[in-house]
């Protein structure tokens, strides 16, 4: 009995899945094989990986748009392979990157398209369909926009409309392909928070591919980490940070992944050492600016130059060979430091 319950918790299961492309009659290009992944009810999974790792191919294969080279995917225990579009559309719904820009089309009408797999050939909406559409719009907070035309909405709102369409489709699995790609930061955060909340509230499984590492680390319940030719690493975001998987996957000469903050830091070439006296927020941003300029920042005495932070007045004091100069902004400070580089 316990085993059955265990299975039922998983909405998506991939079994020995091989993804890739068929080239010609017999040859095939296999990107990755023996993929065994699961998503549980109410879980939000972020698929991360550098460009060319095969994220889209995996997403397309799971969604049944592309057929697997081997193995299969199951949604609620039903294999996706060999199902027609209508049957698949009742198991999983998709949200794409592309910006919807069609005139004369109301938000309500777009969300109602999510009911297509359930309606007759005429597409007549029943009472229940209308309730589901309104419910979906309410969940994304756009019910008051129901009668607006889609091209009157902002990009963030448009993406929320498409998420409402996916909710109206009432599928156990929702897949989103880089849903935040063309949004600004507040909208990106909004969408991620919305998706996380929806996963919890609706008990659906949400799978999204993204490039937003920092957002994914904060919002995802589970991360699937893909790298070219390596098996997919699965785990809670924090686990993947701690065991160094993230660092390894995104390894690059030009930046380093800071395990402490979960951020990427650009790797500037260090030419000089500079002492910075002072801590806290002002110290952090001063340090960022100085490392961009090519200084190795330290709090010990080093070199012939040191910067003292006067936090009360928001001023910077530069001590150099006995000379003292006060600057009122980081910009001024950097400009002053640059004059030495020329002469030194």
């Amino acid at each position: 009995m316990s085993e059955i319950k265990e299975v039922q918790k998983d909405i998506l299961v991939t079994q020995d899945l091989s993804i890739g492309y068929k080239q010609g009659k017999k040859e095939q290009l296999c990107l990755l094989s023996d993929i065994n992944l699961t998503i549980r009810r109410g879980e939000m999974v972020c698929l991360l990986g550098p460009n060319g790792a095969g994220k889209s191919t995996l997403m397309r294969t799971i969604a049944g748009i592309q057929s697997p080279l081997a193995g299969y995917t199951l949604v609620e225990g039903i294999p996706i392979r060999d199902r027609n579009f209508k049957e698949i559309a009742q198991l999983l719904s998709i949200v794409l990157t592309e910006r919807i820009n069609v005139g004369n089309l109301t938000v309500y009408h777009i969300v109602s398209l999510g009911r297509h797999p359930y309606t007759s050939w005429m597409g007549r909406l029943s009472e229940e369909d209308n309730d589901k559409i309104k419910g979906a719009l309410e969940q994304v907070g756009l019910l008051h926009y129901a009668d607006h035309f889609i091209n009157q909405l902002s990009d963030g709102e448009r993406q929320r409309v498409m998420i409402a369409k996916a909710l109206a489709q009432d599928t156990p699995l929702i897949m989103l392909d880089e849903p935040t790609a063309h949004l600004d930061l507040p909208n990106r955060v909004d969408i991620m928070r919305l998706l996380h909340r929806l996963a919890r509230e609706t008990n659906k499984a949400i799978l999204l591919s993204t490039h937003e590492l920092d957002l994914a680390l904060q919002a995802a319940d589970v991360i699937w980490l893909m790298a070219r030719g390596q098996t997919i690493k699965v785990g809670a975001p924090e686990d993947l940070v701690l065991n160094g998987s993230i660092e390894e996957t995104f390894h690059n000469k030009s930046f380093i992944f800071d395990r402490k903050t979960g951020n990427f830091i650009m790797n500037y070439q260090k030419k000089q050492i500079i002492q910075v006296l002072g801590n806290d927020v002002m110290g952090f941003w001063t340090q960022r600016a100085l490392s961009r300029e090519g200084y190795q920042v330290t709090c010990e005495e080093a070199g012939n130059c040191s910067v003292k932070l006067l936090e009360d007045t928001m001023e910077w004091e530069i001590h150099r060979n006995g000379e003292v100069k006060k600057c009122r902004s980081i910009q001024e400070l950097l400009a002053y430091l640059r004059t030495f580089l020329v002469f030194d």
Partner: protein
Amino acid sequence: MLLNKNGRLFSLVFGILFLLICGVFLLDLIFGSVNIPFKKVFAILYGADVKNSWNYIILNFRLPKALTAIFVGAGLSVTGLMMQTLFRNPLAGPYVLGISSGASLGVALMVMASALMPVAFGVISAFLGSWALVVAAVVGASLVFMLVALASLKISDSVSLLIIGIMFGSITGAVVNILQYFSDPEQIQSFIVWTFGSLAGVTWTEMKVMVPIVFSGLIIAFFLIKPLDALLLGENYARGVGISVNKTRIAVIISTALIAGTLTAFTGPIAFVGVAVPHIARSIFRTASHKVLMPAVILIGAAIMLACDIISQIPGNQNTLPINSVTALFGGPVVIWVIMRSRNVKASFAG
């Protein structure tokens, strides 16, 4: 919700459109080179035997002509709407897949090649008699249609299909040009007259063939309302909500071939309505929903075609203007006005 309000508003507009069509239909029967008082026209329609020649003109000339106008306006507008949605292109129309070029190739062969190869074509045209042009157009249109349909099975994106359709058009156009180059002026003229289009030539016998075919194309179109709505979001989203894009595309092509191919065969290629009417419908109803647009383009298309037919009757003159010139000459400014007023044509398509 606004939805119900819109629903009532839509019914009102549809009602007005329907009355408009009835009005224009009667006007179309009344106006003509022979002056028949309109009380008599009613009497004839009710079955009274007013005057032999008048009865003949109304029942065997003006009535089939007006009905043809309705079918041409409605049919071409529906195919234009489907093509614009399928290709997500505001310039698409019934003929983008080369159907009219195919028909014109067939007709050109029949008219002009019968002089170059009198044995083959002369025998065929003698055998077919008055049906010769119709059969030639049908054969030409179906040939091009089959090639495009074959291509659509191989090609899975609509833009490539659009380009292929246009290429077929260019190729057949080139063949027609070559035929014209080697033909006598009289034959060229009779071909050119065909390209002007005419609503008048369709007899009741021909109507019995034309109407069922166009009707079946329209029925297919009505079954495509739901998938076409889904296609508004693009092919990927359409698949995502369970629509088979390939099947829809093939059904659209078949429906277009039945409607546009048949109409072209009987009336010649009639430009403009197919492209313009969907835009007029969108700007009147302010919607992209095919559930509204499909009946809307049928009514608007029929009304416009009837109006154009009335205009083509020059009052007090035996001559009529070629219908193709009338549609463009009087319809063009209307569309420009509609676009200037609403400025939402481009917004109706993915940019």
